[in-house]
């Protein structure tokens, strides 16, 4: 799937991981993610959308990739400049995603076993 490829590329591009990210506020980041309407494509938990074309933000996403995708996005996502979304804003949103508990595995979800 295209979205997986995009994020695989972003992962490769990111040399730094969570421990290299600037300190951020997960609480503020959660609010910002909604205020900026990022969740309209990515979902509040980075799960992506229901149509298959909206990218996920998988657990363990690297800081540098996260920042790159906001500033110089691949494909159709608009770019967000510093003056609109500051580095601290990005760090806060990254902190929010880093704080999220990983989703349960599909095999452990009874409702998904029926498919």
């Amino acid at each position, binding site marked *: 799937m295209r979205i997986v490829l995009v994020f695989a590329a972003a992962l490769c591009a990111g040399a730094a991981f969570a421990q290299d990210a600037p300190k951020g506020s997960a609480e503020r980041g959660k609010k910002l993610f909604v205020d900026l309407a990022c969740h309209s494509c990515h*979902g509040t938990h980075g799960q992506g959308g*229901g149509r298959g074309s909206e990218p996920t933000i*998988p657990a363990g996403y690297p800081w540098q990739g996260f920042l790159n995708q906001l500033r110089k996005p691949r494909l159709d996502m608009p770019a967000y400049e510093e003056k609109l979304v500051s580095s601290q804003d990005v760090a806060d949103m990254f902190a929010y995603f880093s704080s999220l508990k990983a989703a349960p595995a*599909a095999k452990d979800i009874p409702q998904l076993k029926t498919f």
Partner: protein
Amino acid sequence: MTKARKTTTQTPEDESGLDRRKFLKGAAAAGAATAAAMAAATKVAQAAEAKPSEPKAEANMRGNSFIARPGSDFMLDVIKTLNIDYIASNPASSFRSLHESIVNYGGNRKPEFLTCMHEESSVGMAHGYAKAAGKPMGVLCHSSVGLQHAAMAVYNAWADRVPVMMFAGNGMDANKRRPGVEWTHCVQDPAGLVRDFIKWDDQPASLQHFAESTVRAYKMAMSPPQEPVLITLDIDLQEEAIHGEKLSIPKLSLSTPPQADEKSLREAAKMLAGAQNPVIVADRCVRSQEGVDALVKLAETLQSPVICTGNRMNFPSTHYLNLSESRPGLIRNADVILMLEVQDPWGMLHGMGDPWKDIRRAAKPDVKVIQISLADFMMKSNYQDFQRFQPADLAISGDAQTSLAPLTDAIKRELSSTRAAEFAGKADGLRKRHRDMKERMKTAAALGWDASPVSTSRLSAEVWNAIRNENYCLAVSDRIAWPKRLWPTTKYTNMMGGSGAAGVGYSAPGAVGVALANRDKGILTVTLQPDGDMCYAPGVLWTAAHHKIPLLIVMYNNRGYVQEVMHLQRMAGLHRRDPKTARIGTMIYDPEVDFGKLAQAFGVYGEGPISDPNALAPALERALKIVKGGAPALVDVVCQLR
């Protein structure tokens, strides 16, 4: 399919001694206005059609107290021969005579009058109904303003290639129009409003003209490519008495769908039999289970993966050759692509970036494309739903469903035993690919599983678990992609596609129409209902309650027009301005709509809003109990935006 119909002749003399009007009058006088009596009246009335009568003793001219036999009675006789079960309408004076004929003379049976609260709802219901029932519903519209309300829904049906039998009341004789509103509502050429997106129309000037044009319209609507048609009902023609003219109802003989020519099919068979990586793309290909079965045989013969676009349930999702969710890879590697009634062939081979409109080729440059379609037979210039032009290596005009079996036979003749064995050898790999695809979908569905608002994958999974033991139908199956990805579909009736033209407002009435057709077949109907769509004409909830149409409505309530949020956000980014304003004019908040209460107000069981995913299953269970009892029920679920 050809249905033999009686040809009837209306003469002034009652040779049989049966007089329908007197019979009904007598039945009413005897207090026989029960369903049984109505059924009997209708039966006798239908029997009388062979040799009808006109009362001799009663005057039938204007200026007297009564109209012995209005023209609308004969109009209903014509409509009845078309086996139309329902006629959806918001009542209006321009067809008051036909309305009265339906409910009294016809006993309000076949067709039964469905009370609608908006003409868009009437047409939307007819649209959904036709896909599920396999035949049209009638729609009655008021001349100008009613048809204006209906127009968007008509365009949806046009783009979705669905037959709708529309009638619009109108007063043609200016000398007889009442002053004021009647003049305002009359129109010289009512069909002009929708002529760009209907197949055919007429404005009959006599009852015989009406009979011939109505039967012709039905025949044309049902001939693939199926489309809406419109007959204008002149007020005076409806209301004036039949003057003893000779009237007959033409026999309905549906045209055989055009099968692709054998020479072209042989050529297609050669190309497909020689392909290393053939792919079948099915869009509005099939109209029935027969079509699904025929497509399965074709795909198995070729061991070719199938991509279903979702506009029809063309191919079972449980079949290992259904690899719809692997579309990019399949298209990229294909050497021959067979496109079956694909609305947008160019879009299958290309993508386009937004906003820079950069074209991204999705297929090999030398991929061979075979199209089987009737698209060339239905084009009109103004509305652009025919999409961007895509040349084909072999373009075959023909009805895709009808052409599947002869194409399969032609491929079998082309396949050498060696080649057939090679094809059969691909099956294991394709089975694994199908299993892997399903696992990927489940893994993706697990993301955000416990999120609140509820994720659309969780919503879809919970609804499936509520209905999985039923003979089910998802009435509108394109608003959330998860059911198409996850739910096992085996029957044509499992999923009914979408609106056609993406005109918002189809989902709610379309689902009610599907549910009505399924009620008569004993299929449980469920729909995932977007909130913005519901707000267009929520009165259809009342129609569902009033006519006891069982439908499980699960709100996909994301409290906004989310696609537009994304557009606004994109524009703001491009314009280097604040994206936080994207919710202005796009989100439905302050106050939020309470759809549970909305349903209750229309007499429908409703509960919610539910934001906790764990509260969903018991709510669905409660609602399902209502639906199984024969009524609609709504559960309002606050969802993730996408």
